[in-house]
């Protein structure tokens, strides 16, 4: 009944589907491995909400996990055929965003600044630009940083609970800069925009904490502008 040409098309398409399916399965497995390490890094970093003195240890532990993730990403880069990153990228978008937020948080806790895209790429073993191969998508980086801000808002609350009244002020200034940065972007109506819309709630939360701490004179310091960010932070730790 079927003419041979048509039949041929369907057979060819079915073969095509099958090979793609196999590759996707392999990708899924690798992504799951990385995801496991990412979860462990996230758990290691949870220590910051309960003990300020253990922050640096938490960061070290997280960094060990990042090394595992790096191996995973290298493997992923080998599996995914060149020039087909976006064909399969749905599998690792969320994971990468989560990892960016963890790396950004670690680096903020260690050094007090926003991790650059290049550094995230280095830590996770990803290229920065599409041309060089398996890369870190800009949107994933930006969304990851936003996720970190939510974690920082929580950290601000808990650092007050733990008696570190300076921390919220520093976080507040850092987040204000980020907020200004994100406002420079012309966002389309996509996932990034939705995530950005949630930023204001984090900003508000952090500002309220700063207000609470300041009005009670709990922040022993002079006015905000005079706090040099670097050395104050070291004292706090």
């Amino acid at each position, binding site marked *: 009944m079927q003419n041979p040409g048509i039949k*041929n098309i369907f057979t060819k*398409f*079915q073969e095509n589907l099958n090979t793609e399916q196999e590759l996707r399965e392999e990708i899924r497995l690798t992504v799951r491995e990385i995801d496991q390490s990412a979860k462990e890094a996230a758990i290691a970093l949870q220590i910051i909400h309960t003990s300020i003195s253990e922050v640096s240890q938490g960061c070290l532990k997280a960094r060990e996990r990042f090394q595992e993730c790096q191996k995973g990403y290298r493997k992923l880069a080998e599996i995914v055929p060149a*020039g087909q990153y976006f064909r399969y990228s749905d599998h690792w978008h969320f994971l990468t965003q989560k990892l960016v937020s963890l790396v950004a948080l670690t680096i903020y806790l260690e050094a007090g600044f926003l991790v650059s*895209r290049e550094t995230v790429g280095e830590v996770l073993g990803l290229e920065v630009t599409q041309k060089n191969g398996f890369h870190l998508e*800009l949107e994933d980086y930006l969304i990851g940083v936003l996720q970190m801000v939510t974690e920082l808002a929580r950290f601000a609350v808990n650092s007050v609970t733990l008696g570190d009244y300076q921390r919220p002020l520093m976080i507040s200034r850092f987040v204000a800069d980020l907020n*200004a940065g994100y406002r420079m972007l012309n*966002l*389309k109506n996509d996932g990034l925009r939705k995530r950005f819309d949630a930023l204001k709630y984090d900003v508000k939360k952090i500002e309220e904490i700063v207000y609470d701490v300041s009005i009670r004179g709990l922040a022993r310091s002079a006015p905000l502008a005079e706090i040099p960010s670097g050395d104050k932070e070291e004292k706090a730790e």
Partner: protein
Amino acid sequence: HGGNNRRRHHRGGGKHTNTQATVDESNPILFAFHGFAKELDDKHDRYERIVKCGRDITIESKRIIFLLHTIDQKKDNAGKVLEEAQLRLDKVCSTNFAEIAKELSGRDQYQYAKAFSPGLQEFVEALTFFEYISGKEVSDWTTLQEKLKYKGEEESPPTECLVQPIEFMLGLADTTGEVMRRCINSLGSGDVDTCFASCRFLQGLHAGYLGLGPTHNREMSRKLFTLRQSVMKSEAVCYNLRVRGKEAAKWGAEENLLEKGVDPANADIDEGFF
């Protein structure tokens, strides 16, 4: 799309602030985000440009399909129409798709695939319908892929427009709707052979799609449902021809469709755009 309006609004605003406020280079965060803004804008603008090309392709493809439907045995105009259709199909390849290929050059082909996917599907529909009517073997995506490769001018590398097999299969599924229309039209003009041939072609395609494994594509299942309806419609036409002879079928076709439970509103979908 509300999103588009919003975006346009934002872009206007963004440009304004960009020229007004020079970036404070001492603030590394703002400096970095200045770069990000540029990169995102480039991406969004490129996407919009490709969408625009895609829309042009959709419109022209629909017109070509309409043109192909004007083929009438009585008027004996097949040769002329097919010739014109061929010219117009080639022109879409050499202009609209070439523009998209230029935008895609040096980038991951899959990144912007969604931007012109409706246009590509419509073009596949027009192309396969053309091949079917002109009695040629229906080609597959590799043939089309070859057509959409462009040699670069000096120094610039060759470019191409990616044809994903799945897109091709979705376009091919659309073709069935056109073949069904042709089947009904031929009934009107008394071209019995075409009715039976179209029906057989549709049945073959239907069987092919039934045999496919899961494609993980939401569009596909919707198209298969419509495909099934088209097959049943053309089968009803053939049934009528057989039972009542061709004169009666012309009058009875519509009522018969209703009896068979085909939604009357769907019975004659005009895709518009003409």
